[in-house]
């Protein structure tokens, strides 16, 4: 191991080898340092804040959130849509790009998938947090009961329940299946009793023989095919929460594609946000290379374009419909009380990403990190604009109203990041966050003559 390490140091441009992949990735699983614990405790602290706020809200009454009479949905649903959106790119990168054989996905897909699963777990909390009576959340499930009470299958909220739970099931399964060979690799190097047991169970007896590899490939392909439609369906269903209503600013047929594009946009940005520090912290520079960032930047540029186009279409539709309520709503967004949110969103999502047309910026890691944060904020603001702004100015001017953010909502929002961060932090220490197997597919196999001088991704 020492030997290979030295090799890396002395030959920075040398091709990545199988051994190096194993070493680099599995090194991440070594006993954690103070940095990791600091990160974990920060996350747990945020989570504790969020949990306390939620319990306080349940104890004191839902009025502790800032919602008011016209604005029945607020921060929680914004967070829900935001996190579902984050989840999206994971499936896109792992499943869709797998089917398209896009090689740039390999080093980042595991991270993206983990992000997907944890983001869905985060998103799934918010519909419950936002309920007036969360202790009756189970009534949204179609379970058989003596009174023959069923949920209302016409309600988009019920579709949400199915969409999100299906998405979680499939993406978690897909994620886990992809992990099996890598867990086996970790098992082979596990030293502690706990890790031996953990990997021994979760690798499901993987020995790496040909039959297993064959089955694995087939299964992976099938799950990828399963997951692919979900990329489109889940966020479409989420968008129907709004599109199926009659609220001006919500009732729009463009919402499903608009939301899916927005979700991929925000998801890729989140992958960049997570990948950059991870890459730095664990020395993955040779696995996650500027080439990958360049490819993700292009994806951002594309989805930013789609999102911008959707924004323009919304305004055009409002104008063309000659519907006074829609027209007012779309006048109100840029020029009304919450103009800052609108123009903030426009800057973050439409204008700032245009800098990616410059090639050097697409591989400029600090720039990308800043941009990805801006996109995350911009996409949160997009949901804010849709949800809050539409509700503040509906049909009856006498019932127009405003919104007061409360510290409880802020606490719960922070808590969600803590929750998500906690899972991510645990994951990177316990499971390989870069797919060992898949990276090995794209680097030269260890032959006697040595490598082809290719860095991951280049030979495709």
């Amino acid at each position, binding site marked *: 191991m020492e030997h290979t390490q030295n090799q890396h140091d002395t030959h920075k441009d040398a091709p990545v080898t199988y051994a190096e992949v194993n070493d680099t990735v599995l090194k991440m699983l070594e006993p954690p340092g103070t940095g990791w614990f600091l990160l974990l405790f920060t996350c747990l602290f945020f989570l504790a804040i969020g949990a306390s706020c939620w319990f306080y809200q349940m104890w004191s009454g*839902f009025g502790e959130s800032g919602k008011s009479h016209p604005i029945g949905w607020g921060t929680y649903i914004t967070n829900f849509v935001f996190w579902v959106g984050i989840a999206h790119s994971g499936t896109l990168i792992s499943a869709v790009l797998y089917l398209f054989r896009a090689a740039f996905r390999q080093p980042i897909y595991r991270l993206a998938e983990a992000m997907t699963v944890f983001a869905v777990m985060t998103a799934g909390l918010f519909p419950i947090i936002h309920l*007036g009576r969360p202790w009756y959340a189970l*009534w*949204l499930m179609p379970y058989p009961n003596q009174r023959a009470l069923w949920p*209302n299958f016409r309600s988009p909220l019920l579709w949400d329940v199915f969409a999100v739970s299906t998405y979680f099931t499939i993406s978690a399964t897909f994620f886990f299946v992809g992990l099996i060979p890598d867990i086996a690799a970790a098992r082979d190097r596990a030293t502690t009793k706990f890790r031996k047991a953990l990997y021994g169970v979760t690798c499901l007896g993987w020995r790496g023989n040909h039959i297993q590899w064959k089955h694995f490939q087939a299964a992976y392909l099938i799950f990828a095919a399963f997951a692919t439609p979900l990329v489109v369906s889940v966020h479409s269903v989420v968008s129907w929460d709004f599109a199926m209503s009659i609220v001006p600013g919500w009732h729009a047929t463009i919402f499903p594609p608009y939301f899916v594009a927005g979700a991929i946009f925000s998801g890729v940005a989140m992958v960049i946000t997570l990948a950059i520090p991870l890459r730095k912290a664990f020395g993955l520079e040779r696995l996650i290379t500027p080439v990958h960032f360049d490819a993700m930047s292009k994806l951002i540029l594309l989805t930013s374009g789609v999102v911008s186009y959707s924004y323009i279409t919304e305004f055009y539709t409002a104008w063309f419909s000659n519907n*006074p309520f829609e027209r007012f709503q779309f006048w109100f967004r840029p020029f009304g009380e919450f103009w800052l949110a609108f123009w903030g969103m426009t800057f973050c999502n439409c204008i700032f990403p245009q800098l990616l047309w410059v090639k050097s910026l697409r591989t400029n890691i600090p720039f990308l990190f800043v941009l990805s944060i801006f996109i995350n904020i911009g996409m949160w603001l997009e949901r804010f604009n849709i949800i809050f702004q539409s509700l503040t100015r509906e049909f009856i001017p006498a*019932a127009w109203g405003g919104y007061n953010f409360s510290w409880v909502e802020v606490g719960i929002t922070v808590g969600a990041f803590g929750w998500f961060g906690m899972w991510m932090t645990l994951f990177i220490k316990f499971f390989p966050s870069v797919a060992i197997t898949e990276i090995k597919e794209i680097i030269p196999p260890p032959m006697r003559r040595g490598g082809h001088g290719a860095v991951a991704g280049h030979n495709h």
Partner: protein
Amino acid sequence: MKGDNGQLNGSQSEAIVSGAAGLVQISRRRFLQGLGVSSAVGAAACANPAEQTIVPYVKPDPEQIPGVAAWYSSTCTECSAGCGIRVRTREGRAVKIEGNPNSPVNKGSLCGLGQAALQSLYDPDRLRSPQKQTADRLKQDNLYGPTSQTFAQVSWNDAYIKIKKNVDNATGKKVLLTGELTSAQAELVGEFTQQLGFSHIVWDPTQPVAVAKASEMVYGSYGVPTFSLDKAQVVVNFGADFLETWSNPVGYARQWADSRRSESPLRFIHIEPRLSLTGANADMWAKSNVGSEVRLALFLVGKLIERGRVGALDSGAIAKLTQLTKGITAEAVEEETGVSKQKLLLIADYLGESETSLVMAGGAATSTSDPLPLLVAVNLLNVMLGNVGKTVDIAAMKKPASSAQQMATLIKDMEAGKVDVLVTYGTNPQFTFPSAFGYRGASNRVGVTGDSKKAGLVVALASHLDETAELADVVLPIHTNLEDWGYVKLTDGSVSLIQPSMRPIFDTKSFGDVLMDIAFNSEKPIGGESKSFDAYVKAGYFKAVGTKVTGSADEFWMSSLEKGGLFTSPAKAAPASVSVNAAAFALSFGIESSRRSGGELVLYPYPSVKSFDGRAANRPWLQELPDPITQAVWGAWAEIHPETAKSLHIAQGDAVIIRTDNGEVHVPAYVTEHVHKGVVAVPVGQGHSAYGRFAKSAAEGSGSVYSLLPNKLAKGADAIVLTGTLVKVVRAPGSGNLVTVQDFSSQEGRELARTSVVVGGAAAATAHAHGSEHGGHGEAHGGGHEPKQMYEQREHPVYEWGLAVDLAACTGCSACVVACSAENNIPVVGKKVVAQGREMSWIRIERYYDSVPTEDGGEELKVSFLPMMCQHCQNAPCEPVCPVYATYHNEEGMNAMIYNRCVGTRYCSNNCSYKVRRFNWFQYEWPELLDWQVNPDVTKRTVGVMEKCTFCVQRIAEAKDVAKDLGRMVKDGEIKPACVQTCPTQALTFGNLKDPHSKVSVAAKSERAYKVLDHHLNTQPAVSYLSDIRYKA
């Protein structure tokens, strides 16, 4: 009907309820033991040892059926209009007040103030037992400064002994100071003052004494005439807010609406400095300079003389008037009053051309320092137009007894130590009499000469510890009106009875009984044969009705109690001859030249339905009721014109200080164009420092408007000067905590509240035939709706409930909002929660400012009121989005809500285009005692569930039950939701839309009918609105 017997059972059943709730699943013996304990505890709380003998329903009273309401007819005494009421009781507790349909005054309707009398009965801050002041008021360091009152409980006996000692030994004056009394009380007080040597003084700031005085000067007798708005073609009104609080608001609102619904609706012109509820309903509203109205009235007099319309005036009077009106040109009056020349000429033309008309003046316009000239001019106009005997009935006059002059003299006497015994009841001079007169200091000097103390006593007979009662030595707790007996003699000869609707809650006594006790103790008994006040009332009632008794006396008494009194159809007002008092012409009809210096504004206090003169301030329903004009809740505000506000650097909601030499008031600013530039308008009645928790919390230490008023009385009239005080208004640091429920006043062209503009003389015919000018929305009319939709149209096999709202009749008075709160257990959430946009009211009265075009191309202000409740849409947007079917469409056409099933996603509220759903953000509780009012037929909702208007489904169920027992369908008009029942103008109609002949079906097919937003959204509401009508002025 029943007397004492039924009421006794009331308390018994309470004991049963409390016993059963606490002790479930125990043996019968144990239960009865517990019952005994809980009865004793309940009785102990009442502190009346006699009630410890209470036993449960061993022999149930046949009239007390658990679950079935018993109704008691009575008379409302909140203001002095004398509306008949019916009090609904359940298991011995009053739960709702409605208007008595038998009463000729209000015909079954009731205003918000009258309904909120329940919250006076159940006021958690009510006096529960006799109290005596422990601190010696004479030893206070500063007799004129704030006193620190401390009270201790005493027995009735001890209190009576103390009173007897002082009454018997008094050498100075003995004074009984009351508010306006009921007829029975007034008669007894007559005997009392005579027997015991008391003098009686009445103080009630709401009484239009100046109007009564002006009647004396022009019509020849003192009193407030009865007006008939429904018989007039044109009504010109100088500031009398008769749709909100003035004189007889419910009765006049009905007349006004009846006329507007008729074939020839009245044309209503309202002149005032600040837009009132009445002004908002006028066809033409003219904003005038304060105190300048007399010039406008004189201008009209001049114009009528020009036309030769002088009516019954003799030539001498005409000559004097010609002299007076010389030189009053339209231009000059425009300059003086601020009302445009065009409007002036139009008003003159309308009046001159009308056959029957009515000119009125009242309210703030006649509370100036010199109110008589305007009132005399107005009365003269009525004489000239021949209205006396037609629309002005001077035979049926209400004679207010309130006297500011006597009050002022009393205060002087008290200061001089000439008064030894002061007994107060039903009036709050410490709050409502300008504090500049010094009532507080004077009250402390009762029985004091120089610095030495004689035997002096201040007794307050009160049901609440208000500012006046706080100053008393002895406070005796008195029944509220709902626990008391009495009668009110109406101006038309009817006698309206007052009877208790439940047993007294606390150790209180009737005012009449206390007077009789005091007289008896002093060995000068009053009341004749009667040993108690209820007997006195019965005897007095028989005396009052005289020969009109039918059947046996007992039968007649019972039927009178049942009906609420003896109501005679009013005699037709005979055309009266009028002799104008020469003094009338000797008045100065000029306006005081403006003495205003920079930064000073004219104070324009006005009574609001939310607080009236202050007596309603401790009622949470009224505090939380949005003011119809400003939409503000909880506490007072100051209306300021935007230009004035700008020059004073005041913005909407800023804290401002209104200051005079006499005091200052801290209120939030409400910036509105609909107030005169030189005026700051403030509702009176807020700013209590005592009276109760709600009044005090609403006041937030703001101070009362009465404290700003000067130490002077109106010229010629026996009244205080409410309007016209010059004040300094300055911005105070910070926010004023103004909370309004509606922040946007424009309809944004969305045609929510529609108006049909009618032109010319035979206006109504046109209005009803041509209907809306918005011809393009014919498809929105209820009848001709051909919906295009994916799903099948819903079927309603038996009933399809619907509501029609006639905007031409709706005044925005908000009585329906209070009725809904009372009926449906709608919680009061408080100012802070309302500020967060979380008020719970199921009806809101939306108020929009629009303009209607005038013939000359100008624009006239049009204020629209749109009562908005659940529309019970056939295609309800709320229904499909609920994931758990907590809201659904039932087969009677209603959008039903299942509270139990609701998980609180609030999707329904988001998707409701009318925004009528209310979410329980917190668990709301009723403070102890106010919870006695909760209607047992309606579920109290818990935290986290959605609620909304149910069309009072409990009343529908009850009517269907009755109909089923009788083997028939529910009849049209049998079901009246609370809002429909109480509406003073009958603007709301409820019924079965399946029946093409039902009133609601007919209304929904009216030419004026439309459905809000339906033409945009195809929601197909069950609520139809009939567009308002306006003349093209």
